[in-house]
């Protein structure tokens, strides 16, 4: 079995989408993560759900876990409101993403290749590219279902 047999369509977000919309997409469609594409549709970043969340958490709370504890319940409940229209572009960390390996595979990748890639990049989804264009994604769930069935 190859990646192309496991492909599923997948919603993507652009760099200029508001982060709040990205979070909504994740929640409403029960997705494991999101793919950020640039204007010609090629993937720039593949963000597991926890990294989409990281876009929305104030940097000072990520730098210093103690600070998340001191915030009172009323403000803590409303932390997403503080995003007020910020776009994905503004929230993506400035540089390191290019240095990191993207969970990207070609349609011929085997199940083991995909599984190894997911495990290595801590990503519950792999983007499958055909000639540089996004052909679809393989999710952790789809991969496990097929692997267990086999």
């Amino acid at each position: 079995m190859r990646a192309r047999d496991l492909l599923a369509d997948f919603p993507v977000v652009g760099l200029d989408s508001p982060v709040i919309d990205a979070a909504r997409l994740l929640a409403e469609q029960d997705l494991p993560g999101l793919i950020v594409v640039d204007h010609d549709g090629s993937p720039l970043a593949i963000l597991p759900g926890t990294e989409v969340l990281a876009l929305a958490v104030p940097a000072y709370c990520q730098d210093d876990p103690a600070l998340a504890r001191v915030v009172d319940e009323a403000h803590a409940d409303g932390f997403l409101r503080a995003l007020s229209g910020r776009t994905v572009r503004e929230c993506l960390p400035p540089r390191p993403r290019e240095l990191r390996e993207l969970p990207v595979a070609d349609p011929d990748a085997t199940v083991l290749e995909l599984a190894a890639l997911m495990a290595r990049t801590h990503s519950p989804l792999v983007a499958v590219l055909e000639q540089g264009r996004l052909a679809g994604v393989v999710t952790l769930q789809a991969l496990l279902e097929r692997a267990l069935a086999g």
Partner: protein
Amino acid sequence: MSVLAWVSVAVFLGAYALIATEKIHRVAAALGGAGIMLAIHATDAEAAFFSEHAGIDWNVVFLLLGMMVIVGVLKETGVFEYLAIWAAKKARGRPFRLMVLLVLITAGASALLDNVTTVLLIAPVTFLVCERLALPVAPFLIAEAMASNIGGAATLVGDPPNIIIASRANLSFNDFLVHMAPMVIGLMVVFVGLCWLMFGRSFSYDPERAAQIMALDEREAIADRRLLWQSLAVLALVMAAFVLHPVLHYEPSVVAILGAGILVAATKVTTEQAIAEVEWPTLVFFAGLFVMVGALVETGVIGQLSQAAVDATAGQLELTTMGLLGASAGLSAIVDNIPYVATMSPIVEQLVQANGGNETAQVLWWSLAFGADLGGNATAVGAAANVVVLGIAARNRTPISFWQFTKYGLIVTVVTVTLVAPYLWLRYLM
């Protein structure tokens, strides 16, 4: 000078330029320089590893190592977040009062800990508080970086240049308390006044916002009370042992290492966690610097420079002191003050000897320390704390530009260094 001496000078200047311009990692520059010095026989293993005057200063390396472990544990306890939020509540959300308290906490903390750790701890909580009060965060961050540089000057362990000076000059923790700390306290009073002139006048107070500050719960910042008390007790013990050096006769490096050892042995902190808190690249950087400077000592370059300095300033201690203060401040504004002080220490040692080697002549050490510590405030790249603050600001999407920092930095440096000159004059040279 011999050919070897000239080559060693070239290697040294090359490495220095690489460190200053950050073309390559500073550890690579320092180790590369040290490696070439050893390869061309400008120095040898005997001198590099075992010589007190031309080798790695293990007192400095182990003092830093021990303090890194202690501080690493302490910073996990949440005590700084507790203090900062407590201060914000005490200030009742009044912006300038808040700035004064944060600046005083930063200065006090950086007298005991290193400056970078202090600003790393205070900056995130500053973002939280300023966001609540809808205040611009940049003035607070700039003031905190400067306060850490000024406060760090007060003690032997407050700033790495002081650690190097103490070891090379055989000065004790108490010497720094007696000669540096009183003036640093004075400088902090002046600095608070400068903060009012530079920033405080433009703040506006919003009672509604201020009320929201009171909803923060500082007690939640403390994750583990037991560990907090244990690590504060170890820090207190370490400080007491520093002060009691005349009675106990433990070198500061020994005190710090013993303190770190007790912390690991007596608390739940594991050896792995303690080791993870050590900034090994910094320690290796120091080692590389010492070997490079040691090579200049071995090839006689430092000796010749010192002799030239002694001849040029013969008998004019006043002029030498003021010149050293000004030059140290000027150079530390542009290059990292650690390599500067590492290089200058053997030269200042000769100058002190040439001026009689007594307490009056030691004014040169204080002049070097004040110049190097305070000069770091002048530009955004003058001190490690400044660089760290600019980095944190950028990551939080409120970037502070080089000139935004530097325009305030120049004012603070000129004022503080100008005040130190009469202090040194009146206290040591009259």
